[in-house]
C-alpha cells in the first residue's frame, strides 16, 4: 500500500513538473497581468510553485494539475496584493499623451490593454481566463475559488468597463472618462 501511495505521489510530482515545463511562462504572465508588476509576479510565481510543491499530495487528479496550480497562483496573487501596501504606485499615461507604441493600428488594442490594467485584480483574472484561455465559467470558478455566479457577475462588470474604454474609431485610442 505504501508503494502504491508513493507511486501516486511520483505521478503527481511528474505531472506538476511536466505542467511547469510549458506552463511556467503562462503562470508568470497571468501573475503579471493580475498584479501589474513584473517583480511581484516573479516572486508570486516562485512562491506558488513552492506552495504547490510542498502541497503536491493535495493534487488528487494529475489530469487537473493546471486548474489546481492556477488556483494556488491566483490565491498567491491575492495574498501578494494584500501585502503590497508599501509598494510605489505606477500609473498609466494620461489621455492625449503619446504612448510608445501608439500607432493607429495598435491604438485601440493599446487602449484595451490599459483598460484591462485598470480593472481590479480579480476582474483581470477572470477576463484573462475567459477571453485569453477560453475557459468556460465553471472552469474559471475552479481556478479562482469563486462561485460560478460570481464569475459571471465579474465578467459582466469587466466587459462593461472594457467596452467603455474601447474606442475603435478614436484615432488616439485613448480611454476617455
Amino acid at each position, binding site marked *: 500500500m505504501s508503494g502504491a501511495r508513493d507511486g501516486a505521489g511520483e505521478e503527481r*510530482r*511528474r505531472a506538476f513538473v*511536466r505542467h*511547469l*515545463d510549458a506552463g511556467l511562462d*503562462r503562470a*508568470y*504572465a*497571468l501573475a*503579471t*497581468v493580475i498584479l*501589474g*508588476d*513584473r*517583480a511581484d509576479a*516573479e*516572486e508570486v510565481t*516562485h*512562491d506558488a*510553485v*513552492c*506552495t504547490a*510543491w510542498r*502541497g503536491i499530495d493535495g493534487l488528487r487528479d494529475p489530469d487537473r494539475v493546471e486548474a489546481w496550480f492556477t488556483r494556488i497562483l491566483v490565491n498567491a496573487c*491575492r*495574498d*501578494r496584493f*494584500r*501585502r*503590497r501596501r*508599501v509598494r*510605489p*504606485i*505606477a*500609473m*498609466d499615461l494620461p*489621455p492625449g499623451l503619446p*504612448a510608445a507604441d501608439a500607432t493607429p493600428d495598435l491604438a*485601440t*488594442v493599446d487602449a*484595451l490593454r*490599459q483598460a*484591462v*490594467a*485598470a*480593472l*481590479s*485584480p*480579480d476582474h483581470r483574472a477572470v477576463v484573462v481566463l475567459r477571453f*485569453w484561455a477560453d475557459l468556460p465559467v465553471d472552469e474559471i470558478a475552479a481556478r*479562482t*475559488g*469563486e462561485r460560478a*455566479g*460570481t464569475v459571471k*457577475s465579474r465578467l*459582466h462588470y469587466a466587459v462593461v468597463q472594457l467596452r467603455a474604454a*474601447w474606442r475603435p*474609431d478614436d484615432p488616439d485610442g485613448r480611454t476617455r*472618462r
Partner: protein
Amino acid sequence: MTDDRFDKDLRDALDRLMAERAPADLRIRVGRVLAQPAIDPRPARWRGVRLAGGLALAGTLALGVLAVVMWPRPSGVATPSGSAGMPSPIASSSPASSWPAELGMPVVTVPSASVRQTTVQDLMAERAGSAPAGPFAYLVGSGDTSIRVVDIGGGSVRTSASPTHADERVIAVLHDDRWLVIETATPLDACQPPVATRAGWRILAASLGSDGMPGAFDVVDSGVASWPFLLPGSFGMDCAHPVPPPLALNAGIVAYAIDETGGAGPATTVVIRPLDLPPGSCCQTLTASRQVVQLALSPTAVAWVESANGLKPDDVPDWRVVEGTLADGATAAVPVGETAGKAHEELPFIVLDGTAVLASLDQYEASSGTVVRVDGGRIETVDPGHANRSCGAVWGGGGVAVLVCSGILPDPGSSPMDQQWLATWSAEAGLRAVAAGSRLVSPMASWVAADWLVWDGVGKMPDGTDGTSYSALSLRALAAAMP
C-alpha cells in the same frame, strides 16, 4: 462596433499582455525548488540547493530563454474600493472542535454577533437600509463621479458626490470616525526614460456626519511628486514613475511625506496636519534622511519606513524604521532586530500602538516572515515565524496587536489551499487565531478603519444571486476577548 470586433480587439490586447515570458532567474529558482524533496516548505533561496537527486527537469527549466516584452504602464490602484481590497473567494471555516493544526497557534473565540455583515450587488446601486449603524465602507473609484457609502451594520448603500477629477487616479482612501480622506494623483507628462515623469497629487478631506455621510471636501494639500522609488524588475525600471505621498490617518490627524521644496529631493519631509485646522494653516514637519515609503500614525507618534531612492538590481537593499514623537518632534531610528541587506531586502510594514512600533519583517518570504513589537528599545516577538504560515500586523492598540496570517489550511471538499485568517496577540496571551463563533475569521482582503477590521468577500443577495459581502469586526471587542 460589433461584438466580434470587440472580442477580437480584446483578445489581441490579452495576447500582448500574456506574451510575458518567465525570466531566466525565475526558471532557475523554480528548477531549484523542483530539485528538492516536496516536503521542505522553505523557498530555495533560503537553503542550500541540492540539484542532485531531484527531478531531472530542473535543469531543463533553467534553460528557458528570457524574452523581455515591453509592457503597458498599469494603473496600480484601480479598484473602486476603500483600500487594496478584493473580494474573498473562500469563506473558509472549521468546526470549533477541530481547528486545523496547521494554524500553529491556539484560537480565541469572539461571539458571532461581533461580526457585522451586509451583502451588496457587484454593480452597486443605492438601496435603503436600517438606521445608520456603521461601520462604513467608502468606495471611491478613479473617474467615478460618486462615492458609495456602504453601511455594514445598517445595510444601506448611499452615494455622495466625489471630489475627484476625471483625470485623477485614486491612490488612497482612509477614514476614521470623523474624517474621510482621499489621495489622488495625475500624471503630468509622458515617459521619457530615464527621467522620471511627474505626478500632481491632492489630499482631500471631508468631515463625516453621524450617519457616516461625508460633507464638503477641502483640499488639505497638493503638489507635484517628481521622485520615483525604483524596485528591481518593476515597471519603473523602463520608465520611472513618481511616488505620490505616503499617507496615514489617525484620530483626525494626517501624516504624509512630500518631496523636498522645489522637488530638489525625494519625499523626506513628513508633514503632520490636524484636519480641523483652517485651510491654509500649517502643521508640524519632521525630516527624514532618506525617501519615506510608508507611514504610520498614532495620537502620540509618527513612524515611517525610509529607504534610499533609486534601488537598482545590484544594489544592497537599504531601509530603516524611524519614529518621531508628536509632542517635541524628536526622531530616532527604531531597532527592529534586523538590518537591511540582501538577507532582509523586503521593506518592513509598520503600524503603531501609541509609541510602540509593530514591524512586520521579511513578509514576502512565506516561511521567514516575523513580527516584532518595539517599545522604548525593548523588542518583543509577536510572531517568531513558522514554516507553514506568515503573519503581518495590521493594527495595534492597548498592547494588543491584530495580524492577518496566511498559510496552507485544509479546505473541506477540496485540496489544501492558501488561506488567510485573523490573529491577535498580547504579551500575556501570545499569538492566537481568531474565530467568530465556530468559524475562523478569514479576511482575504481587509483594511482597518476607525478601529474596525473590514473585509470583503462573496455573499448571497436576497434573490439568491451572488454579491459582494462586507464584514466588520470591532478590534476593541477583539482586544477585550483576549484571555
